[in-house]
């Protein structure tokens, strides 16, 4: 579709960079198109094949963690919002109609409401038209027990209104955690406690053999020791992984480890899986939207390369290009995102070698900004002390991206930037939820899939804000 569009474009503009004058000069009405964006085609979706089951899976997977709410947007913007089931049904219908057949949910998504909504929407379609992926999402030590986990799985089947699950994941393997007493656990310790010591993994393998779980895999966040161990088990034949879900995008490809030493570059993760012929399911192709919202100079750079593509298209093309990628998940709240993504993958135009180099250059540009790698997944929330962590990071990053972060008191821009930072912070976060109220209890640290040292970052922002407040010009002091 992109090609056709571009061909039209080239036809109209004579295949050269011709400006508005040329457009005005173009008088042949037959050659004009009325719109640049057209309905995505229904039958062009790129499909990937699961080597074991032969499932033909759409390259675009629907992530059910950002479902629309009636208040507008998703629960990220309206934590107390009401799920807009009607809108979900429409979008799911549209997706299935356009070849999307992989739906990824979890008992934890949308404050526990995602599976129900997904079940309602999918139940209206024949069972062989879609694959369901859900997870064992026991983040709270209270649900780590064998019985509680069994109950969670049973509950998933019930809410999703299905007899079997196509893809089941151990949720967040590698994430550090805390035990019931609040004692910190490393990623490996947490994995042991959650899935091994209670015999849960063996029980899941049983369900797999019984056909209740068609594919068993895990989603990986964080501690690379866990990733390596699980793959070693695979090699040793102890457990078999039908698929693995990893974070992959052009920024994490080479920079995940540079941005945060606790994380692992996607290139390593993908290659390890690829070697073993394990299909990868891709999460965070857009880094929670961060790669769709890059600073203006970077947008310009990307646009000048492919003027008709938006920046998100680049990220999806990148994530879909490696051939052992089974599907790329996107949490689509809005219909236009769904349409955009279907267009990108109907069919996929793989990233060329030159384009790949170009994206690596873009990744370096983004890395050099030194933003906080928060993609507002809200897993850290609620903070027991009421801090609005994602909003604070988001405002800080926004100031960086817009080049408004004040540094030098002597600079001419300082006054304007100081005002933007302080006023913007008060607008986006009520004062009693700002960084200076963070006591550093560390409750959030283990929840962050990006493994950000949240209290440290909050304290840095607090000190930064405090210095700004104290260093104003006289008439602007009272901000």
């Amino acid at each position, binding site marked *: 579709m992109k090609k056709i569009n571009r061909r039209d474009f080239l036809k109209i503009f004579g295949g050269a960079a011709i400006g508005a004058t040329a457009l005005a000069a173009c008088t042949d009405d037959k050659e004009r198109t009325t719109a640049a964006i057209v309905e995505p085609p229904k039958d062009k979706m790129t499909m990937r094949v699961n080597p074991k089951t032969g499932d033909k899976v759409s390259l675009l997977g629907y992530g059910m*963690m950002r479902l629309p709410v009636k208040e507008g947007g998703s*629960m*990220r913007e309206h*934590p*107390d919002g009401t799920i807009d089931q009607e809108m979900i049904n429409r979008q799911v219908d549209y997706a299935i109609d356009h070849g999307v057949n992989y739906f990824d949910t979890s008992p*934890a*998504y*949308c*404050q*526990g409401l995602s599976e129900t909504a997904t079940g309602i929407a999918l139940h209206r379609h024949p069972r062989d038209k879609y694959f369901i992926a859900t997870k064992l*999402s026991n*983040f*709270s030590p*209270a*649900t780590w027990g064998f019985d509680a986990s069994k109950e969670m799985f049973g509950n998933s089947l019930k809410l999703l209104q299905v007899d079997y699950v196509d893809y089941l994941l151990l949720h967040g393997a590698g994430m550090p955690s805390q035990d019931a007493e609040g004692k910190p656990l490393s990623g490996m310790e947490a994995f042991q406690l959650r899935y091994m010591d209670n015999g849960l993994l063996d029980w899941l393998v049983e369900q797999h053999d019984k056909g209740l779980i068609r594919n068993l895999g895990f989603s990986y966040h964080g501690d690379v020791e866990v990733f390596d161990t699980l793959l070693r088990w695979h090699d040793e034949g102890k457990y078999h992984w039908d698929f693995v879900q990893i974070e992959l995008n052009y920024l994490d490809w080479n920079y995940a480890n540079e941005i945060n030493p606790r994380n692992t570059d996607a290139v390593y993760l993908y290659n390890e899986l690829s070697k073993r012929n394990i299909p990868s399911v891709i999460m965070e192709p857009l880094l929670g939207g961060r790669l769709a919202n890059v600073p203006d100079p970077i947008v310009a750079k990307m646009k000048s390369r492919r003027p008709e593509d938006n920046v998100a298209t680049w990220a999806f093309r990148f994530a879909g290009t490696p051939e052992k990628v089974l599907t790329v998940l996107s949490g689509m709240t809005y219909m236009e995102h769904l349409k955009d993504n279907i267009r990108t993958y109907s069919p996929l135009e793989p990233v060329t070698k030159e384009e790949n180099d170009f994206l690596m250059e873009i990744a370096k540009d983004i890395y050099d900004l030194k933003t906080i790698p928060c993609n507002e*997944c*809200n*897993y850290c*929330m*609620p*903070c*027991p*002390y*009421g801090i*609005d962590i994602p909003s604070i990071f988001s405002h800080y990053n926004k100031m960086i991206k817009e080049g408004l972060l004040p540094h030098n008191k002597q600079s001419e821009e300082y006054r*304007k930037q100081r*005002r*933007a930072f*302080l*006023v*913007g912070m*008060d*607008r986006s976060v009520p*004062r*009693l*939820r700002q960084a*200076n*109220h*963070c*006591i*550093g*209890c560390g409750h959030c640290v283990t*929840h962050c899939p990006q493994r950000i040292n949240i209290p440290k970052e909050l*304290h840095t922002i607090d000190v930064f804000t*405090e210095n700004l*407040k*104290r*260093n*104003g010009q*006289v*008439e*602007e*002091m*009272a*901000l």
Partner: protein
Amino acid sequence: MLKKLRIALATVMMTLVTLLLLDFTGMLHRWLGWVAKIQFLPALLALNVVVVIVLVTLTLLFGRIYCSVICPLGILQDLIAFRPRKKNRYAYSPAKKWLRYSVLAIFVVALIIGVNSLVALLAPYSSYGRIVQNMFQPIAIWINNLCSNIADHYGSYAFHPHEVWMRSLPTFIIAVATFAVIAVLAWRGGRTYCNTICPVGTLLGFFSRISLFRVQFDADKCRQCGKCEHNCKASAIDFKAMDIDLSRCVVCGNCVEQCNFDALHYKMVSTRKVQPAVSAPDNTASGTPADTSRRSFLVGAAIATASIAMAQDKKKVDGGLADVEDKLIPERQTPITPPGSRSAANMRTRCTGCQLCVSKCPNGVLRPSTGLLTLMQPTMSYERGYCRPECHTCSEVCPTGAIQPISLPQKSSTQIGHAVWIKKNCLPVANGTPCGNCARHCPAGAITMVPLDAADNTSPMVPAVNEARCIGCGACENLCPARPFSAIYVEGHEVHKEI
């Protein structure tokens, strides 16, 4: 001519005073601060001799022009009484001397013995300040917040959102009641309040009685039509006697302009006396007693802020905001007064409760006191913010000298109180959570974290306050995670100290 000049000056003055009182951005007082400082009573309390002498001299020369063009409460009454289609609605009434002088006497006694709540209640400029701060500033802030939302939409940082909150219910009620009384009196009888209750009006009346310039009858020209009397909002003209009560005349110029026969002139006093005729007192505009029982039934609805109620569910992992309980005011043995006020006594005897400092405080610290003797005077508390090191706005705006100018370095070494630790509330003690937020934010570096048990280095770290370094700014109290009562709070000092 006299009237036009008066209206022009009054308009300018009213606009400036109102802007000064409405402003919550902390930008205007640098240019407009003087309009509060030339008010009579504040100048008197600030011992601002120059202003007092100028005002008295002005009155001796020109009569009570102060009441017509400088006092915002006076101008407010003219605004309320302005009913162009209802002419000839006033009539002469003799001065209510007994009431006027008793109020003045009570006022002076209250001032001397330090019952300042009464002083604050009667002070005209302060009454206007309270009305604006309590009734109109919230509207201004709401408009600002609306603009802020719109500006946000367009990526502009021109407007800074501010919170609207009720600082003190009694003061709010007093402000609304004062406004109601003033409005009713002015609507019905023009300057009744100025000439029966206002102590400044009565005091200036002594001087205006002998003013050099005054409105005078020309007996040769006067046809006794009575138009002047019926348009005198001070009820000071007795046309039959051709007499003007100069102690009540506020030199508005209405009579001069109304007279069709050119019989009234504002000019230098002449020795020629007009023979007074006996006149029947006509009492139409009598002062109604203050309706202090007026309820502020709007209060709750208007200022109520929505609280976030969100139960914290263990299994919820993606999102939601935990409820943050509002902080409550601790029971302080000694109230805290702002840096620059020097002592509780200085504050008590000089402040007239105009709320200018309260309306300016950008950190939500100042609010009117509810104590009987200090009613409406500012006091500090740290539930919403603390006295930040870069701010000394209140000391810049205070017109009465209750809060005297204090530089930022001076402020940072002025002890207005000291922090007190409440072991029971402290998080590390209560549930072992490491904290130290107070120590991390103390601008004076007066807090050190020490082990609870000196013999055991692994015991929870708790704050130790060096009282000698603490300045009482309240950063620790405000940022303490313990709610509703902080685990560290500031106890005020009667007399401020340099440290």
